[in-house]
C-alpha cells in the first residue's frame, strides 16, 4: 500500500491486521478476551481521531470525549426502545448529527488557539457532561440502556450478528481498518497538504491565500464524527451509555494514549491504546496499588521515548527521525 509512509509502519500494520484477523480463532469461545479486544479497538478508533486532530492538524483538545459520549447518546436517544434498527442507517445518522454538532462547536472553539482552545473544548465537554448528568430524561448520572442491538442487513443480506461477540469484534476491526485507511488517504491528499502547511505555519498559510479556518473546521468535523462513531460502537458493545464517557479524564487518557503511541503517526494510536490498556490490565491484576506502577511506567516511557512507541519502532527498523 502506498499510503504507508515508512518501514516500521508497514510492518506494524500488516502484522497487526493479520493477527487481528485470526486472533478470534485462537480465543475460541473466550468471550471476555474477544470483548476486551473489541473495547480496545473501539478506543483505538477514538484515539486515532484525536491523534489526527492533535498530531496532524495541531488542534489540541481536551474535550474530544464529548463526541465519544455524544455518539453513544445520539444512538441511544434516537433508536426506538424495543425495536431493532439498522446498523448502517444509524451509523449514518450518528455521524451526520455529531458532524453537525461538531460544525457548530468548531465554529466556536476554532476562534481560539493553543492553550485557550484546550480550555474551551474542555469547558464545552464539561458542559455537555453536566447536561447529561443533570438531565432526568437521559438517565442522569446513571446513564441510559440500549435494549435491543441493531441488525446489520444490507439489501436484505445479513451476515453480522451484533449479539455475537466475535461478529462484533470483526465489525470493530473492520471499522478500525477503514478509519486508518481513511486518515491515511486524507493525509496524503491535496487537503492534507494544506493541513500539513497550516499546522506548521498557519500565518504563512494565510499569507498564501488559505482561509485556514475552513480547513481546520473540516478536520475538526471529520475527527469529531469519527470519535462519535467510536462512542456509538461502545454503546453497542455493552448496550449502555453514561455521562462519564464524556468526562475530561477520558479525553486526557486518550491524549496519553496518542502521545504514548507517537503523536501524529495515526498508527501510533493503535499502539498507544493497546499498550496502555494492556499495561493497565496486567498491572491491575498484579496489585491493588496498580496506579503506582502504571504512573512509574508512563514516566519511564516519556523519558526514554522521544516520539512515542511509533518513533521507537521507527528507529528500531532503521528509519530516519522525521
Amino acid at each position, binding site marked *: 500500500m502506498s499510503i504507508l509512509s515508512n518501514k516500521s509502519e508497514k510492518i506494524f500494520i500488516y502484522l497487526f491486521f493479520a493477527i487481528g484477523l485470526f486472533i478470534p480463532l485462537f480465543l475460541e469461545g473466550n468471550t471476555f478476551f474477544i470483548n476486551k479486544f473489541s473495547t480496545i479497538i473501539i478506543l483505538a478508533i477514538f484515539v486515532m481521531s484525536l491523534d489526527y486532530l492533535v498530531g496532524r492538524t495541531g488542534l489540541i483538545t481536551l474535550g474530544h470525549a464529548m463526541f465519544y459520549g455524544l455518539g453513544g447518546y445520539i444512538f441511544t436517544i434516537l433508536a426506538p426502545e424495543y425495536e431493532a434498527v439498522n446498523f448502517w442507517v444509524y451509523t449514518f445518522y450518528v455521524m451526520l448529527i455529531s458532524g453537525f454538532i461538531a460544525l457548530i462547536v468548531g465554529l466556536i472553539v476554532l476562534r481560539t488557539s493553543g492553550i485557550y482552545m484546550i480550555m474551551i473544548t474542555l469547558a464545552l465537554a464539561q458542559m455537555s457532561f453536566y447536561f447529561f448528568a443533570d438531565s432526568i430524561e437521559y438517565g442522569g448520572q446513571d446513564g441510559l440502556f440500549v435494549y435491543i442491538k441493531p441488525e446489520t442487513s444490507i439489501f436484505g443480506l445479513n451476515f453480522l450478528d451484533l449479539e455475537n461477540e466475535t461478529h462484533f469484534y470483526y465489525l470493530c476491526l473492520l471499522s478500525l481498518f477503514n478509519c486508518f485507511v481513511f486518515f491515511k488517504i486524507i493525509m496524503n491528499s491535496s487537503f492534507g497538504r*494544506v493541513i500539513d502547511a497550516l499546522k506548521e505555519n498557519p500565518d504563512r498559510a494565510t499569507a498564501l491565500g488559505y482561509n485556514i479556518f475552513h480547513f481546520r473546521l473540516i478536520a475538526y468535523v471529520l475527527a469529531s464524527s469519527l470519535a462519535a462513531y467510536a462512542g456509538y460502537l461502545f454503546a453497542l458493545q455493552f448496550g449502555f451509555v453514561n455521562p462519564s464517557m464524556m468526562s475530561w479524564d477520558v479525553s486526557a487518557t486518550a491524549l496519553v494514549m496518542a502521545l504514548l503511541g507517537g503523536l501524529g503517526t495515526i498508527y501510533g494510536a493503535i499502539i498507544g491504546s493497546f499498550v496502555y490498556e494492556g499495561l493497565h490490565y496486567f498491572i491491575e491484576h498484579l496489585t491493588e496499588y496498580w496506579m503506582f506502577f502504571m504512573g512509574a511506567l508512563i514516566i519511564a516511557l516519556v523519558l526514554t521515548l522521544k516520539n512515542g512507541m511509533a518513533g521507537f519502532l521507527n528507529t528500531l527498523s532503521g528509519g530516519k527521525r522525521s
Partner: protein
Amino acid sequence: MSQTILEAENLCKFWGGLKALNELNIQFKDKQLHSIVGPNGAGKSTLLNTLCGAYPATSGVILYHGKPITHLKGYEFCREGIGRSFQKTNIFHNATCLENCCIAAQQRIGGNFNLFRKRSKNRQITEIARKALQQVGLTARADTRATEVSYGEQRQLEIAMVLATAPKVLLLDEPMAGMGHEESQTIISLLKELKQQYCIVLVEHDMDAVFELSDLMTVMVDGQHLITDTVDNIRNNPLVQDAYLGNDDEVF
C-alpha cells in the same frame, strides 16, 4: 507611463498611541520596482503588512486596479494577486522546497478540499512549483527539506513561494537581509528580471541594491511619507540624507 495597480489613500495604522502609518498616500505602478526606505521603525514593514491584508488598516483605503479592497479578509489579498515575502524567513521548515512551492501553487489551482485525491497526482501544481524554483535558481534543492538549506537559499525559497502564487504585485520585505554578497547578487539579478513582469514593492536597507534596482523610491519617516522620486534625486536630497542615509560615507 505604465498604469497604477496598487495604491493607498490616507492609509493609517495605529498601534495604541503610536502612529505606525500616518495618512499615507502612495501609488505603485505595473512593471516597476518601487522601493521603500526609511529609518528603523518608520513603518515600512507595517505598510507591507497592511497592503497585503495581514494587518487591518486603522483607516484609509487600499485600491487595487482602482477598486477598494480594504475590506477583504487577510487570505483574500493573496487570491487577488498580492503576494508577499517576509522580513523574517517564514517558510514550512519540515517540507521540501518543492512542497513549499506546491502549497503556494495549490491555492491557485484548487483541489484544496479534495480529501481523497493524492496530492502528488496533481501535475499542474508540481509544474508551477518547479518553475518557481527554477526562476530563483533552486532547482537543485527541490527535494531537500527547507530546514536543511542555507539561510540564503531559504530567502530564495521565500521568493519562489510568492512567485508560485502567480502574483501581480510582489511585496518584498528585506529579501537581502542576512545574505552574503554572492547570494545578494543572485537576488538582485532575479529581481531585475522579475520587474519586467511584475509590480514589485521592495523594502530594503541595502542601499547598493536599492540604488541599483529601483525605478522609483519612497522615503518614509515616522509613519509618514517624506518623498517619492527617482534614485538620483533621492540620493542627493538633503532631507533624505539627514533622516536616513547620513551625510558621509559609511566608512569613517
